[in-house]
């Protein structure tokens, strides 16, 4: 048994889990073309969830603050992006790919800016007075989530909003009998580049070093003379911005969004954060991919079980590793 564990550990340990799930699914599904489509969809979904969840994980890891209102940023990002795209629909429909890309970039930038601003407001006004008091943190961020949802309802209304997509992301590539939606490839690429960028910042810059040190031991970093509260505002804003970006991507993926989007994603985001281990970007990515793949496979095999499968995954992982797959703090 130990020998097997060692060999598995050498080849990546828990990182092999998504691969194992994919192989298992291949055997169960049987049809290679549907398996490829599902895998790509799962990877894309995983990357979008990763965008939403990574900030939450870092925020908790660094400051022991749990933001139950995190999903409000996801909704805000989705709706701001949808409105921007709708306002720029002339550019989207244009036959000029530069204009297309410009509209998309503007929409994503608008979502990120909304997330950053919202994050600053949340941290400065709502969360700052209740540091280190978990009960009131949970209550206050929950209250803020209620208010945020109501604001979204008041501004965008309760009916589903259509999200226009830029023309160059429409359609699918067809290789043999496998069809792959271009938007999914785009989502995957974007998520991967954000992951790499985050890894670079955390791994190779001074700020990243401070964040990692803060996650490991906040008091020690403070006693060395660094203002970790300022760093925390920055991390909080960054996390909110990423959540908004994730929401914007999700809006484009769904093409029809309703104000309950945030609440629906919140559960998945929480599960990912718990499964991945708090404070770890790598763990969050792993868990997000796992959840994304599992959701698509189970959704194909047994549609009603999709959300339940997430729950079961969380239970199993927590029984096996109570701190998550790859916790930052051992």
């Amino acid at each position, binding site marked *: 048994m130990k020998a097997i564990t060692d060999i598995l550990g050498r080849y990546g340990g828990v990182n092999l889990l998504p691969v194992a799930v994919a192989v298992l699914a291949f055997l169960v599904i049987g049809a290679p073309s549907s398996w490829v489509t599902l895998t790509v969809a799962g990877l894309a979904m995983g990357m979008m969830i990763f965008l939403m969840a990574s900030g939450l994980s870092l925020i908790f890891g660094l400051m022991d603050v*749990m933001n139950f209102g995190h999903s409000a940023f996801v909704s805000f990002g989705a709706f701001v992006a949808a409105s921007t795209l709708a306002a720029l629909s002339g550019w989207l429909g244009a036959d000029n790919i530069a204009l297309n890309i410009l509209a998309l970039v503007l929409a994503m930038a608008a979502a990120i800016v909304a997330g950053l601003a919202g994050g600053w407001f949340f941290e400065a006004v709502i969360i700052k007075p209740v540091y280190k008091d978990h009960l009131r943190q*949970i*209550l*206050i961020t929950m209250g803020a989530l209620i*208010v945020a949802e109501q*604001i979204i309802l*008041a501004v965008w209304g309760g009916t589903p909003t259509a999200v226009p997509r830029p023309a160059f992301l429409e359609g699918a590539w067809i290789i043999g009998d496998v069809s792959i939606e271009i938007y999914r490839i785009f989502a995957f690429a974007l998520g991967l580049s954000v992951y790499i960028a985050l890894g670079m910042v955390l791994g190779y810059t001074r700020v990243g070093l401070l964040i990692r040190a803060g996650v490991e031991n906040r008091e020690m970093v403070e006693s060395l003379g660094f203002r970790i509260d300022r760093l925390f505002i920055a991390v909080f804003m960054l996390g909110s911005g990423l959540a908004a970006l994730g929401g914007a991507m999700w809006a484009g993926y769904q093409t029809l969004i309703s104000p309950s989007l945030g609440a629906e994603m919140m559960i998945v985001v*929480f599960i990912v954060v*718990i499964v991945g281990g708090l404070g770890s970007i790598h763990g969050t990515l792993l868990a997000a991919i796992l959840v994304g793949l599992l959701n698509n496979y189970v959704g194909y095999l047994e549609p*009603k079980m999709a959300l339940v499968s997430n729950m079961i995954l969380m239970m199993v992982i927590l029984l096996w590793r109570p701190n998550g797959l790859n916790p930052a703090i051992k």
Partner: protein
Amino acid sequence: MTQTKGTLFVKYVVLAIATALLFAPFLFQDVRALEVAARICVFIVLVASYDLLIGYTGIVSFAHTMFFGIGAYGTAIALKQLGNGWDAVLVGTLAGMALSLVLAVAIGLLSLRVKAIFFAMITLAAASVALVLASQLNQITGGEDGITYRVPSLFSPATKLMVDEAGKVVRLFDVKLNGKLAAYYFVFGTSLALFVAMLRMVGSPLGTVLKAIRENEARAEAIGYRVVAYRTFVFCISALIASLAGSIYAIWLKYTGPDTALSFAIMIDILLMVVIGGMGTMWGSVIGAVLMVLAQYYLRDLMQFAADATVNLPVLPQLLNPDRWLFWLGIIFILLVYFFPRGIAGTIMQKGIVK
């Protein structure tokens, strides 16, 4: 413990509320008011049982509606499948309680060891799965539409409790003594009994241990109390009471669906009631439940009036729209958590200390 003037005041208010609820069918003679009174009774129990967790023990759970819903669905399904007898009520209620107990033990043992935040997240996930299951298993639960069923004939409005010589229903102070009245007093009586039982529980040594765990977990453990066991126990008790409250509400409503028994909106209502009323005081849950239910039914009328009055101003009518009442409650909720973390009852009870 010294009684403060504030405590006495709060107790008088609660007594007044109880009296009003006792005579509700005679005091407020319209259908809607009776509906409000029954809802208040059920929610007092539900909120008080939640207060056992959040206020007395310091456990934040988002699965409380799940237990409420299990009780409601248990009774509803039994009444639908087995017909409208008392045996069906008993079977459904017991089945609901059993399932709640099993789930509570499982969740409790699995996750009450971990940090409060983990527990909150896990219960949230469990509750959402329950909601999805209820709306998807539509052969059993009726899906989004829910279940309508008939209740024991004693509670049907056509039943005559007392008849005069002409065979007509006797009227007492102009109120028909029919099954509706019996149903209301069933709700009132069971709610009162459950509330008194909880009141008794928090006054017992058990309640003191729970408070000790809330105040200082490590110290309680050091004195020799098994914190995890106590937490799991209170989580189970509170789940059972919530499940019973669900059964009572199902009998009153004669309808059970995701919106009345399981939705996340109810969880938010409970949370608001507990915090507004005051965490850690059973009296607070009475005040919170009364205020919130009244607000739910009557604040919207007020807001409609305000929205009509400000129709010419920008944005304001949008925010004053009756559908946006949660917006204002959310803001009040945040302000309360900041400035009066003890809620209405807790704040008043501190005033006027009698030496």
